């Protein structure tokens, strides 16, 4: 298959970036999007040009490192799935494909298609530790967890932290990410001792990083490769209201 790529090239955050056109001929339909970029890069290197910088790691949709906005959609047109799980057969022969990095103000630009998503890590750090016993696995029935709660906790824990939610959000909001992180511990008894402080701290860390506010457009859940539901945002709103109330009473 043959493609024409329009790729965002920018040396650093100090310089102005622009979309540069590249031809990508002779691509197998079974090539993944990232492999296609590898092939294009090899050809660029052969010609003595600077290869396109992009993030990737596991290339099987579990690490959350790839962060491409393809044809205006975070992770490209195939949802749910990360950019690494996108195959070129999903596109039509001869198609022009635009590739940009994940963009949101808290994602600081590094190079070409690479941005720093440390803001998400700092939200998780703000949540702090849980005071559950570490070490060898406890006896399975010592802490009963209802099936429904266990299921929801696992659903929320599926978040791979890629940041597609914030990149796709018209408000640059990381509510889906934060809601998944707050919810998966809030559903479990092990997460209960720090439930109040965790919700409050993570929300204020999210605001401090400069993420926007949720206006319920649900773009986030549409692009989420882990299929995190926006109903977790409602859960976060509940947790935050509950925590604010508990804090008021506590003080």
């Amino acid at each position: 298959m043959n493609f024409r790529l329009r790729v965002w090239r920018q040396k650093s955050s100090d310089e102005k970036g622009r979309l540069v056109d590249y031809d990508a001929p002779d691509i197998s339909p079974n090539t993944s999007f990232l492999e296609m970029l590898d092939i294009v890069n090899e050809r660029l290197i052969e010609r003595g040009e600077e290869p396109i910088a992009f993030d990737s790691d596991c290339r099987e949709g579990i690490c959350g490192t790839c962060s491409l906005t393809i044809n205006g959609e975070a992770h490209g047109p195939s949802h749910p799935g990360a950019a690494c799980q996108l195959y070129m057969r999903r596109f039509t022969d001869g198609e022009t494909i635009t590739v940009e990095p994940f963009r949101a103000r808290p994602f600081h630009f590094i190079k070409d298609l690479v941005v720093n998503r440390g803001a998400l890590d700092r939200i998780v750090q703000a949540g702090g530790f849980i005071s559950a016993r570490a070490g060898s696995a406890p006896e399975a029935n010592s802490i009963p967890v209802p099936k429904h709660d266990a299921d929801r906790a696992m659903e929320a824990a599926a978040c791979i932290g890629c940041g597609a939610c914030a990149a796709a959000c018209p408000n640059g909001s990381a509510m889906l990410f934060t809601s998944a992180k707050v919810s998966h511990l809030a559903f479990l008894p092990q997460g209960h001792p720090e439930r109040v402080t965790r919700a409050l701290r993570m929300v204020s860390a999210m605001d401090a990083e400069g993420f926007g506010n949720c206006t319920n457009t649900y773009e986030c859940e549409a692009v989420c490769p882990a299929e995190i539901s926006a109903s977790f945002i409602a859960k976060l709103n509940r947790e935050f209201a509950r925590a604010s109330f508990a804090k008021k009473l506590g003080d």
Partner: protein
Amino acid sequence: MIVAVTGVILVLFVIGHLLGNLQIFLGPEWINSYAQHLRDLGGFLWAIRLFLLIAVLLHIYYTIWLAIENRRARGSYREREPVKASFASRHMAMSGLIILAFIFYHLAHFTVRVTDPRFALLKADPLNRYDVYSMMVYGFQNVIVSAFYVLAMFLLALHLSHGASSFFQSLGLNDKKLTPRLARIGRVVAWLIFIGYTSIPVAVLLGLVKPAQQL
């Protein structure tokens, strides 16, 4: 949260106001006495008006503030394709501001009554009450007035098709199963409100509702 709560207050007002207005189809006797009852509330009516005014101001103040923050936070893409976000959800500020302009006009038109000189010629109805019925009919006989009214109601329905159900999400009063249902109900309610409000100028322009008195 403040946006959601004030939004609900305003949606309830919009529904109540619609039910009041639809009494025009029951004839002058009904709607004139309804209007008289409202006016007889006296101080209480002003309390309601003040309450609504505060709700409107808070709703606008916080949404503008949010819109500025959100605009600052979002990435500036060269190309962006909405995947799921509805047209309504992406244009809440636009629809909201035009509705605000309409509210100013609407109050000047029917409440303060400064825009239409013919309203001054209206006589009291046989029971010596203000003839709201004829005022509405004469008001809507103007095609431009009616057209702006219908446009504003269209934008209101658009605004509410996202806003009416958004409330549940913002306050966390839903779950995975309930969310799509609430969204559907919200859209249906929004467009019922549109049909309800629009039916009045349409009926007047078609001549189905005639003034109770000649000017």
